[in-house]
Every structure is written in structure tokens, then in C-alpha cells.
């Protein structure tokens, strides 16, 4: 048994293989299908495959998703606490979901019942595999013998170093769902233009610039990673994609050639995040320099890379 449980939810986009490898537990959420039926939201393609799901979203089929609620988080945490285990619960950004609040209230309730147990919640200010990457770092810290408090503290102190750099083909989808800042101007479907975004200080995706065409976009992505990544050879880099596997494989290859990280893993975006991101995400997730408060430094880097 591990010294403490690392718990994520379905917004972490970690496959079974990765979760098993790093011994990370997860709690299921909820998915409402276009016909109104409800089913669990999981980290498996069990009801439909990825392509079918994203084609349906692109067509306009209406899915909605919600995280586990306070009662469900309480039951899940209590399951571990009653077995004598502490829990490090890692949450999607509080800027885009109520999950952190639910998790925190659940932890309070379980602590009241099991006062000797430690239940710590971390708001990653991140989402999808970038949040998943933070859970992997927590697992690595646990394997190094760090206590639950030390692991939580490391995550809190370093979450601002977890970067995203990639593009979204069609911002109109994600703007409808509200997961991007400076959104007012982005309802249009952008043909041939790739908006390139990182995460801001508050955990919201922010477009730093736009590249005209895929070739320019790949160059800008690699250039930005080069200017922001730290110690790439020791890192696992994720490339997340929602129905953009071919582009993700291309980017993964370029990242391997340029930065030689210890590993590049291409991940799927499962329905919990997928419903809100839509098809068209293709982004690299890695650890680098702290993100500046107003993203001014990052904007300046992108401006230079795009020739502005």
C-alpha cells in the first residue's frame, strides 16, 4: 500500500496505463448524452471511441458533463480514510470548475469523522493532461519518499511552472463553452489561422498570438517551448489532442528531435474535458519557467517568434 493515495478525477485525462504505472486513483464524473440519458464519465473510451465522440461534437450534438458532487467526493475520500489511508486530492483549475470547492468541502466532512487522517486538496489551476502531469509529479515525489505535506507543498509552489503550448483549430467551440479568456473576439471559425495559447496565472487558457498556417504554428510552438522549458531531458512531456492525432504525432516527433525529453506521451482528451474543449486541440504540456502574472513576458516571446 502506498503511504498516501493520489486522487484525481476524469479531467486529468490520464489513461489506465499511465494511472497504473504511477499508481494514481481517480473518481468518475457524469456525462449527459444528446438523447438526455445520463452515464458515468470515465477515463476509458467505453461508450464510444474518440473519433465518434469528437465528430458528434463537431456536428453539434449536445453533450454535457459535470464532476463528482460533494457527496460523491465525500464517499470516495471516506473509502480511503476508513482504510487508514491519507489522501492527496488534485483538482482541475478552480477558474473553470467547481470541483475544487466540492473536494475541499468533502475533505472537511471526512476529516471531521476521521480526525487522525490527512486529506489535502490542491487546486492545480490547470486542466486535462497538464493537471494529469502534476499528478504524475506528485507520484514521483511520493516514490522519492516525500510526505503528503511535502508533495502538496511542491505542487502549490510549482504549479505556475506547468505550461501549455499548442493550438485549437476551432475556437468557436471552446468559446461557447467559455474555457478561454479574451473570448469576446473569438467566435469565428478560423481557417488557416492557429491561435497559440498558454495558461495564465489564474488557470485560464489565454491566446498569446496567432500563426498563419500550420508550418508557422509548429515553428512558433517549438520556439516558445525552447524559450520556456527547463531541464527538458529529465521531463515527461505530454502532447494532448482531441481528434488531431496526426498533428500530435508530428509535434511529438519534433519535440523528441529538438529537446530529447525522457519521454513524450501522446494523450487523448476524454469526454469530461472534451465536451468543453471540443475537437481541434493539439498542445504540448511541460514544466518550465514560472509564468508571469500578466503573461507579458510570454506575449513578448510569442510576438518575437511570430515576427511581430
Amino acid at each position: 500500500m502506498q503511504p498516501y493515495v493520489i486522487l484525481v478525477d476524469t479531467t486529468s485525462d490520464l489513461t489506465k496505463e499511465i494511472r497504473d504505472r504511477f499508481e494514481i486513483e481517480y473518481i468518475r464524473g457524469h456525462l449527459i448524452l444528446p438523447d438526455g440519458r445520463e452515464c458515468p464519465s470515465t477515463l476509458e473510451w467505453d461508450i464510444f471511441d474518440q473519433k465518434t465522440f469528437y465528430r458528434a461534437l463537431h456536428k453539434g450534438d449536445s453533450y454535457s458533463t459535470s464532476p463528482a458532487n460533494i457527496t460523491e467526493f465525500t464517499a470516495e475520500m471516506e473509502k480511503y480514510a476508513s482504510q487508514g489511508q491519507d489522501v492527496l486530492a488534485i483538482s482541475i483549475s478552480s477558474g473553470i470548475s467547481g470541483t475544487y470547492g466540492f473536494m475541499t468541502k468533502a475533505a472537511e466532512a471526512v476529516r471531521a469523522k476521521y480526525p487522525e487522517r490527512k486529506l489535502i486538496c490542491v487546486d492545480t489551476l490547470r486542466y486535462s493532461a497538464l493537471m494529469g502531469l502534476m499528478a504524475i509529479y506528485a507520484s514521483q515525489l511520493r516514490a522519492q519518499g516525500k510526505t503528503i505535506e511535502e508533495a502538496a507543498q511542491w505542487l502549490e509552489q510549482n504549479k505556475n511552472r506547468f505550461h501549455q503550448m499548442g493550438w485549437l483549430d476551432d475556437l468557436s467551440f471552446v468559446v461557447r463553452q467559455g474555457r478561454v479568456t479574451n473570448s469576446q473576439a473569438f467566435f469565428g471559425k478560423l481557417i488557416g489561422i492557429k491561435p497559440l495559447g498558454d495558461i495564465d496565472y489564474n488557470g485560464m487558457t489565454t491566446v498569446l498570438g496567432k500563426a498563419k498556417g500550420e508550418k508557422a504554428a509548429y515553428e512558433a510552438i517549438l520556439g516558445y517551448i525552447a524559450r520556456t522549458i527547463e531541464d527538458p531531458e529529465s521531463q515527461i512531456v505530454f502532447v494532448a489532442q482531441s481528434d488531431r492525432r496526426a498533428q500530435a504525432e508530428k509535434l511529438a516527433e519534433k519535440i523528441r528531435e529538438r529537446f530529447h525529453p525522457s519521454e513524450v506521451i501522446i494523450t487523448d482528451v476524454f469526454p469530461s474535458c472534451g465536451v468543453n474543449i471540443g475537437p481541434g486541440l493539439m498542445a504540448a504540456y511541460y514544466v518550465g519557467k514560472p509564468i508571469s502574472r500578466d503573461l507579458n513576458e510570454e506575449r513578448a516571446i510569442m510576438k518575437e517568434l511570430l515576427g511581430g
Partner: protein
Amino acid sequence: MNVFPVPDGDTGSNMRVTIENGVRNAHSSDHIDEYTSSLSKGMLLGARGNSGVIFSQIFKGIALALKGKKVVTALELAQALKRGYEVAYSAVLYPTEGTILTVAREGIDKIIDSVDQDTSIEELFRKYLEQMRSTLNRTPEILEVLKRAEVVDSGGMGLVRFFEGVVDPRSAQELHLEGAHSLWFPGFVDVQDAYGFCTEFILNLDAPLAFDIKKLKDYLDACGHSVIALQDGSLVKVHLHTETPLAVLAYAQRMGTFVNVKIENMDAMTARGAKPEHRHQKPQRKIGYIAVAQGDGEIQALEDLGCDIVLNGGQTMNTSVEEFLGAFEQLKSEFIVVLPDNANIELAAQQARELSGREGIYVLRTHSIAEGYFAMSMAVGDSNDIDAQLSAMKQGIDGVITLRFARAMKDTDAFGLHCAKDDYIGVEGEKLLSSSPDLAGSVVCALHALPGLEERESVLLFRGQMVTEDEADDLVEQLSEEFPELEFGVIYGGQDVYDLVLGIT
């Protein structure tokens, strides 16, 4: 449509699922506490999303307050509603005013003093509902993000809709399912916040040389808002929203003769369900964007990309200097970027810029909807950096090729091609590239005729009124096969002059 904490469309479905889970778990009983207890348990277990969780916590509070009771009076129920919002507030990590929490709180706090032993349950719920509606209307004034999006809080709306069903179950059958626009029910318009009359007129001045436009503007500003007044020689064009249109006309009539007058009752427009465009003034951005387009789809596309004003223009209806001046007047931004859609309109925009005497107006050299679209596509949202924005937008225009396709009016020979009447001809600027009786054929030929096509990546097609969606989809499929290295996309442009306008980048 919810906009807080983030805009998404699942509040209604989340709250519905939450209450359905509650109802499925609830069992009828002679004891109200048994019913509310089982209802709240079902809701707590089956809560979905932020609003669903808060909704379930409200009922948790109600159930706690009614514990041990078999029947309740209106007074006791009022206390339970109060307990409901208290529990909900305590369950939220960072309670935010202007949301379902405020609606639930004010709904009961503002009426509880009027509830006594003689108040019936029905009367309690009617007062509660009426107060909640009033608070819901105010939520945009409490929460900035709601004001910007010009919506009320959707979780609060869900709570109101629920209690409308409680007060009058028949109202549930009249539910609109049209989407976000259906939020603007007539019942939610606050009668104290009337819009007045949209008043426009053109006046032929008796003494144009002696006319003082500033004095007129000062008068009009005192009468209403959204004032525009432009003088062109002996004519003055006026637009404003005012409660006293007749007084304004009487004042104007002293200075000349009306050429035309239009008065529209904006309150009546709102009552018919028209969206009240000027209800909440959008906060003005540092950089404003004015574009020109010809079709309704083109106009919509540019607005979607962030244009504040899109003027109707194009090949047959060139936008005038006066219209540009009026648009400049409407935008209070520090900087304005103008995107004309042909060379003549660019000239008019430049003239308007000089006449306005205003600093910070930039006219881009966009000569087609395609160039305008790519320019706006490259702009970065709410960026306040005018230099960076102009640079990005110019990058967008750089290298864009525009092709236009329309039917030939007559037989003709040009550029080594023979065009028969009604053939689809493809032109780049003044140069004829293709002619074919079939639109797809003409597009394929024109693309093949372009030098350096292998360096290009994307083609955006603006579909005119004469081309159906199916026809455009078939065309894109054909083009994708013919040119597998290019990415194709279609936007409904709605232009009536050209069947297709292509932007190639």
C-alpha cells in the same frame, strides 16, 4: 447560457437532472419532513455541476429546518427558505453575489417581514417568486461578467423557473426551448428601465452657415442617449434614443424642414421579444474595430470575430464618408481600426479619418471580405497593444489572394479565355482566370491557374446567397480531393453580387 463562473450551456440540464434525482428518491408522506428529507438526499446524491450542487444545498437547508415537522405554516416555511440559502452559502468555498445565492437570499430576506400567521403558503411562494425575479433582473448590476455578456445569472434563472412551476404548474408547458435568446422574456424587462423611442430624422437647414451643431448635440444629449448628429452642407442627420421624441422634433423644426422622420417605440420592440440591444452598454475596449461588408453572413462573421460596427458596403453600395464619421462617433475607443472591403471604400475611410480630426484611427488596406476576415482572425482578442494588433492584422492580410466567382452577363473573350453568357467566371482583381458552365469547374480551373499554389495552406470560401449549403459542402469535398494539401472551409457570406468569394492564404 451561463456566464459565471464560465460561460457554458449546461446549467439548465444540470439543475434539471439534480431535481429529477431528488424527485426519484423522494417519497410522499403525511409528514413534510420525510418528503423534504428524502428529496434533499436524492438531490445531494444526484447533484450535477455548480448550480446543481448549490440547488441541492438549498434543499438540504430546507430539509434541516423542517426536521420533525408534519405540517408547516407559511412562517415556518419562510424560515426554512432562509435556512436553505444559509446552508448553500456555507457549502460554497467562495460565495459570489450576483448568482443563484443572491437570488435565493434576497428572495426570502426581503419579504420575510411581510409574512405572518395569516399568510397562506401560496401567498408566500408568490411573494418569494416575485422578489426572486426582481433580484434576478439585478444580477447583471451585481456581477460584472453578467453585465458584459448582457445576461442574467443562469443558476438564478433556474431557481426562478423551478418556483414558477411550484406557483403555477401549468407554466411549465410554456417553456421556450430556443436557446440563449429566450432569456429575454417580456416579464423580465423592468418597466422602470424603459428604452424610449429610437428617433431619426434628416433636416434641411434654413441657415446652414449659421447652424451650430455643438449646440444641437448639447440639447440632444440632455434629451436622451446614443446621440449621433452629423452635418453635411445644408443637411443634418440625427439619431438618438429619447423619451420625448416630439419635443426633439419641435426643437429641430425651428431650424429647418424635415426631409424624413422615423420614430420607433423601443419598449414595444422589447415586449415583442426583440433583443434590447442597448439595454446594457458594453464596456468600451481600448481598440475598436469598424469593418465594411456586403452580405448578412459576412457582417455576422466579422462581428463574431470582434468587429464593433460592420457597415453595409461592397461593390454596389460604397460606404460614404458620412457613414464612417457616424461610426467613429459611436465608438469611444482610444484607437479605431477600419477594415474597408474595396479600394473606393478605403478612400472614403481615409477621408473620414482626416475630417474627423481624431487621433488614433488606422485604416487597413483590406480590399475584400477575405482580407478583412484574415486580418480580424489574426487580431488577438482584447489586446490593448495597438502596434502589436496592427502588426498581426497586417500579417493576416499579407499574401492573401482573393478570387471572386459570378455568372457572366454576356459572351466575352478576355485573357485568352472565352466566356459564354451565364458561365461562372473566376477573377482575381481585374484578371479573368476561369470560365465554366459549372461553378466547381470554374473554381478548380482558377486555383490551378494561380502561381505558387503549392506554397499555400488554406482556402476560405464565402458562400453567396445563390449557393446552397449542400452545394458548398459538395464543392469543398470535390476541392479537397483535387487539392489534398489544402485546407478548405466555408462560411455563409450572404453576398448577392458574387456566388463565391475565396480567400487563399
